[in-house]
């Protein structure tokens, strides 16, 4: 137990509130820079694709949001598990903070995907395996948010929605497989395919930049929302009022 004291200290609301307050800028500034550079590189300086023309450029938003939609659900599921097993309120607060962000990126991924689909497949929506999985993932986020919002009591909402998130996390690979089995018509993964990326550096570098940039943006947004969650949950203890009055008197 003793080895985990730093962990418990980090998990205490005052510490994590302060830490998230300091961290978010460290994430946000490089995020903005990387996204700007990556999008400029991808949308302006990278050459058009030999088959897809300029339409392929949507990958610079689409692929990072697809990755973040999955990352978001994993963070949700893992922190829900930690919250349930170790009864750690911070983990529940993180899950609550991350869920809407993950849902937003899932939505963004669907929108960009269907915009891409119009020139590529000839339709805004094709019942393609990945788009369908992504749609079901969005539904899972919505179900999670619906359950969370239907409780009056925060701690019960935390724990009940954590069980749902865990059930969902177990289900994600099964859903992915079943949808693939049902139908498949999408390119294989471009960056992570065996034998290295099938992309010249002029296209790849901006893509990696925007991946990293969007991921940092995700982290920054999570920090901001986590602070808001902590504030909302910790209205009662005095550390907050003390801290607020202290910081107010400094100004």
């Amino acid at each position, binding site marked *: 137990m003793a080895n985990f004291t730093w962990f418990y200290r980090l998990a205490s609301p005052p510490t994590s509130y302060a830490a998230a307050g300091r961290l978010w800028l460290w994430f946000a500034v490089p995020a903005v820079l990387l996204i700007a550079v990556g999008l400029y590189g991808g949308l302006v300086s990278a*050459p*058009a*694709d*030999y*088959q*897809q023309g300029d339409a*392929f450029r949507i*990958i610079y938003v689409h692929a990072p949001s697809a990755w973040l939609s999955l990352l978001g659900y994993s963070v949700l599921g893992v922190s829900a598990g930690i919250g349930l097993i170790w009864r750690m309120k911070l983990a529940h607060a993180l899950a609550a903070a991350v869920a809407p962000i993950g849902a937003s990126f899932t939505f963004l991924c669907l929108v960009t995907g269907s915009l891409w689909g119009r*020139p*590529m*497949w*000839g*339709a805004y929506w*094709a019942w393609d*395996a990945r788009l369908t999985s992504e749609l079901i993932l969005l539904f899972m986020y919505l179900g999670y948010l619906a359950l969370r919002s239907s409780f009056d009591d925060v701690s019960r909402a935390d724990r009940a929605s954590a069980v749902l998130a865990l059930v969902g996390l177990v289900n994600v690979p099964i859903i992915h497989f079943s949808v*693939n*089995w049902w*139908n*498949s*018509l*999408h*390119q*294989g*993964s*471009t960056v992570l*395919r065996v034998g290295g990326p*099938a*992309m*010249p550096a*002029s*296209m790849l570098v901006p893509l990696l930049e925007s991946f990293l940039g969007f991921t940092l943006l995700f982290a920054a947004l999570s920090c901001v929302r986590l602070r808001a969650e902590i504030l909302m949950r910790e209205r009662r203890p005095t550390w907050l009022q003390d801290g607020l009055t202290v910081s107010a008197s400094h100004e």
Partner: protein
Amino acid sequence: MTARQRRLAWVAAILSGVGLSALVAFKAFDQNLLYFVDPSQVVAGKAPQGKSFRIGGMVTKGSVVRLPGSLEVRFVITDFAHSVPIRYTGLLPDLFREGQGIIAHGRLQNGEFMADEVLAKHDEKYMPPEVAQSLKTAPQPSASLSTQPAQGQP
């Protein structure tokens, strides 16, 4: 049994349940898991009769014929062993071109595949047009590999 032993028994029971389920799932992989039928199977008579299904293959170079004054298109798809003629009426997706992998949905009629939907399968490569041009002109024995339709693969 102590509380600890009981908890271990639970975990063991759950894990063996999950393991058994994985085993049963793998049993399913022994079965036919193809998502679409290729021309060789059609020629061998293994395609479903009188019922719509998906067919996948590469559009044979020089086979695309557009009927003037209508949206009807005829072309031939191949898996490099056998070919099947396809007839389709409607707008084709941008990525449809000769030498490209496609998937069509429809049914067989007198040895001809009447498609009601044609979907282009774009490959996993992104490159600037100049590079693609130079690849095309240079002799590339391995290039045909990547443009083959990925059969039975997601």
